[in-house]
């Protein structure tokens, strides 16, 4: 299908907007059930300590308190073993050493913010008051915050079953081929970078209401999540409750970014409380709780080396990763590691690759997928290496890329790590971006900045990423038509702000030739949860997966309807044509509308498919200005040319890019979760201390599309949700380094805060 086949609904806004602009959305904290109780968690204020005792007697006597739960209750309930997904073989066949994690800490606590006890009371204030009466006696143990220190031989051991705090050691590629290539290289560029630990911070804090039905021995959870199928699998594994006994209500979700995918200890503990008290139990996280105990993102340290020949052709790349996974393995952490090897070559022909991974456990909050889940990390290290190499061999950064891009004729392109990139026009993409950013005119702009006393830098990143594939067996979509001709589409994917109600309804409306308002999307509808399979929304997969199946389902409905219409029209199905929601035949003037098929009851079809990865790619070019007197950097311009295949809704896609680029800008210029190295105390524990991007950080993006249709998706679409992060981390990082390099500053790690940049400038001046 061509892009033209889609009508664009951009100017009128999204289907969701009428609800969300008027305060009529239903987020998780907005749910209230009759007779509900309120939960409040007591959290560890130690990073590593033995829990000698937890005395709940005074709390239990506090007015309004119904129950207090501790680690012993979690262990008794069997809520001790969350599933993990690092189930690929490690080095020499090593299996992941997964620590147990009682849903309330038992015996030991391992990070500041870990839940130790939960008070359940008639009101939230009663629960909060009583939690202050719980007495915890600790015996302090030394924490370890840095993942490199955690892997050192004399580091404190955090889990009995994880020697050396090493959860997994893995490798990919061909070490010998890389050694050979490096030995004959004309130039080797080396760079050690940190992709910092950040807090995803969707604006909606986590909130759940759990209730228990004794008759069915089943649970209903009102949640904020990225789709119920993955959450249900995680939660079933953690609690031992069969999946068919778990039901969910999920309506509007206030952002996810990967952090809303996994099952958390709080889910389990609330289920336990609901079963014990026989009442619905509600918990709403505070922001500070969220920063302390929701999963963090990134947290990778990479030591990289790139080998080049005399002409600047890449020969080989070697990467050594230390992945900080925090104190426990989150159930959704696989992609965070695996995605870094899927697109390890980036957009280049690099004949030999070798990477090692050491997955470390530390006295910090668990780390999991965060917008891009490893994709921005690998793009950052590869693109920083390439720009660093260009500077070292004194070649234009765009020219070095040009010499090494995978040519269009090489697609589908099999990478040395076993991925198959389906389709791209990388040279075309690069040249379009260079024109859009006026790459040639940069020296003039730089001179202008210098005249005004400012440093200026330009940074380029040419990136590719895997999107679309999921772990579910398949994506299923049901389409139902009622007698009025109203079309309802059911998916198991779940928007957290992506606008699926608009995009997916558009796909179906276009296929059926109906106006958009006739089609309604229902996501994770309770009555379909145990009937339809599908992936959660994450990994930029939903339009590729569920969206494509919406298209297939609409066509299946047409075929199903054609047979029924043929009967009604008394002709052969081959004589029935379909257009604008109506079946007709040249044999007569009679018409059968879609709704007519449903006169004796709704008509529905289910379509299914499973798709592999699509590979969106892009070239982002940023220019920054740095004030040498303050170290403050500002974005002077940002250009993004992206190949995301066919676009269904340009406004929605542009919005995804804006958001992703801004998140990357946040990470480059300020965001970082900081723990005190000695005590493990969380230093950036609230929005008072944690840097969040604000209006004006990213003033504008000049964007262009450079589509090559996906060969994987029948719609030709590729994922877009994470592209902004993947492109912006390296583009902005390279831009700042380009501004500072003339001063003799070779490398700074993110976040490039004014203080850090100012100190680097002073140090460089003092050296001269």
């Amino acid at each position, binding site marked *: 299908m061509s892009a033209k086949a889609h009508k664009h609904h951009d100017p009128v806004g999204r289907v969701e907007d009428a*609800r969300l602009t008027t305060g009529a959305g239903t987020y998780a904290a907005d749910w209230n059930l009759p007779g509900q109780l309120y939960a409040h968690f007591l959290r560890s204020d130690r990073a590593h300590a033995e829990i000698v005792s937890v005395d709940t007697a005074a709390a239990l006597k506090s007015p309004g308190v119904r129950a207090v739960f501790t680690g012993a209750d979690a262990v008794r309930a069997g809520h001790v073993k969350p599933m993990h997904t690092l189930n690929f073989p490690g080095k020499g066949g090593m299996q992941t050493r997964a620590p147990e994690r009682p849903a309330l800490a038992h015996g030991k606590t391992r990070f500041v913010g870990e839940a130790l006890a939960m008070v359940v009371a008639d009101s939230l204030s009663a629960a909060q008051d009583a939690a202050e009466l719980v007495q915890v006696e600790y015996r302090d143990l030394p924490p370890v915050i840095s993942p490199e220190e955690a892997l050192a031989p004399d580091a404190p051991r955090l889990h009995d079953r994880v020697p050396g705090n090493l959860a997994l050691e893995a490798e990919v590629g061909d070490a010998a081929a890389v050694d050979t290539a490096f030995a004959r290289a004309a130039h080797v560029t080396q760079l050690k970078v940190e992709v910092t630990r950040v807090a995803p911070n969707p604006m909606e804090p986590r909130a759940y209401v759990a209730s228990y039905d004794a008759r069915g021995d089943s649970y209903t959870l009102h949640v904020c999540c990225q789709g119920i199928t993955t959450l249900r699998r995680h939660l079933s594994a953690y609690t031992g409750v069969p999946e068919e006994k778990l039901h969910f209500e999920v309506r*509007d979700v206030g952002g996810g970014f990967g952090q809303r995918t996994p099952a958390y200890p709080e889910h389990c503990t609330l289920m336990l409380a609901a079963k014990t008290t026989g009442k619905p139990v509600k918990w709403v996280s505070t922001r500070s709780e969220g920063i302390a105990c929701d999963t963090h993102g990134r947290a990778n340290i990479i030591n990289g080396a790139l080998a080049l020949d005399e002409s600047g052709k890449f020969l080989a790349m070697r990467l050594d990763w230390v992945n900080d996974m925090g104190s426990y393995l989150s159930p959704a952490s696989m992609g965070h590691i695996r995605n870094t090897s899927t697109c390890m070559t980036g957009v280049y022909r690099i004949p030999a690759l070798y990477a090692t991974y050491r997955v470390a456990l530390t006295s910090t909050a668990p780390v999991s997928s965060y917008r891009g889940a490893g994709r921005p990390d690998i793009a950052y290290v590869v693109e920083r290496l390439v720009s660093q190499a260009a500077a070292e061999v004194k070649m234009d950064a765009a020219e070095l890329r040009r010499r090494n891009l995978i040519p269009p004729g090489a697609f589908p392109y099999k990478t040395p790590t076993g991925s198959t990139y389906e389709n791209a026009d990388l040279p075309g993409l690069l040249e379009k971006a260079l024109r859009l950013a006026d790459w040639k005119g940069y020296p003039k702009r730089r001179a202008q900045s210098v005249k005004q006393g400012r440093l200026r830098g330009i940074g380029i990143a040419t990136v590719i990423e895997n999107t679309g594939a999921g772990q579910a067996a398949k994506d299923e979509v049901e389409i139902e038509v009622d007698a009025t001709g109203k079309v309802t589409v059911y998916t198991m994917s779940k928007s957290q702000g992506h606008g699926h109600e608009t995009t997916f309804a558009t796909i179906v409306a276009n296929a059926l030739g109906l106006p958009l308002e006739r089609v309604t999307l229902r996501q994770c509808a309770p009555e379909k949860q145990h009937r339809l399979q599908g992936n959660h929304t994450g990994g930029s997969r939903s339009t590729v997966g569920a969206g494509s199946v919406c298209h297939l389902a609409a066509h299946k409905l047409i075929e199903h309807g054609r047979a029924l219409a043929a009967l009604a029209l008394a002709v052969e199905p081959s004589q029935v044509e379909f257009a604008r929601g109506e079946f007709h035949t040249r044999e007569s003037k009679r018409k059968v509308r879609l709704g007519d098929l449903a006169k004796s009851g709704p008509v529905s079809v289910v379509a299914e498919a499973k798709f592999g990865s699509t590979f969106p790619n892009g070239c982002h070019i940023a220019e920054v200005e740095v004030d040498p007197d303050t170290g403050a950097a500002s974005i002077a311009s940002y250009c993004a040319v992206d190949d995301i295949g066919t676009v269904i809704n340009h406004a929605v896609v542009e919005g995804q890019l804006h958001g992703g680029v801004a998140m990357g800008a946040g990470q480059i210029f300020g965001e970082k979760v900081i723990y005190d190295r000695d005590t493990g105390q969380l230093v950036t524990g609230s929005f008072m201390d944690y840097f969040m*991007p604000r209006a004006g950080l990213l003033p504008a993006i000049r964007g262009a599309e450079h589509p090559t249709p996906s060969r994987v998706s029948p719609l030709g679409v590729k994922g877009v949700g994470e592209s902004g992060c993947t492109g912006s981390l390296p583009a902005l990082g390279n831009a700042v380094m380009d501004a500072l390099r003339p001063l003799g500053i070779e490398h700074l790690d993110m976040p490039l805060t004014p203080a850090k940049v100012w100190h680097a400038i002073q140090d460089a001046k003092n050296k001269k």
Partner: protein
Amino acid sequence: MAKVTIKVNGTNQTRAVEDRTLLVNFLRDELGLTGTHVGCDTSQCGCCTVHVNGRAVKSCTLLAAQANGAEVLTIEGMAKKGKLHPIQQAFSECHGLQCGFCTPGMIMATAGLLKDNANPTEEQIYKGLEGNLCRCTGYINIVKAVKRSAKLLRGKAR
């Protein structure tokens, strides 16, 4: 306990609440006006912005008792007779929202900002929204929506 009467979206509401009840909890829990959101616990995010006596205020920064006798306007009071307020319309038209969680606060903050300055520059908009956080949009379209709102309110939009 404190007996509090607040005129919310034009209607007087009287409730007896715990002294420590914040205005935002009064709106959400006592009146069921869940369009006003809570996104943080340190008064940084602005998701709970409402108007108190005509000024944009973060409703987590004052006690319900302090708002006794005040007039409060929430997001639920912005659309009139099923017709979106021009600011709501502008946010939708400019795709100035994605997940929508910060949106009620953004809209109320925008209404406050435009009351003080009917035609703000981009820099003035950045300053006016520095107390409101959004994690989805990257703010570019929010700034566009504020500009469009200003035009609509000045009656200059097409």
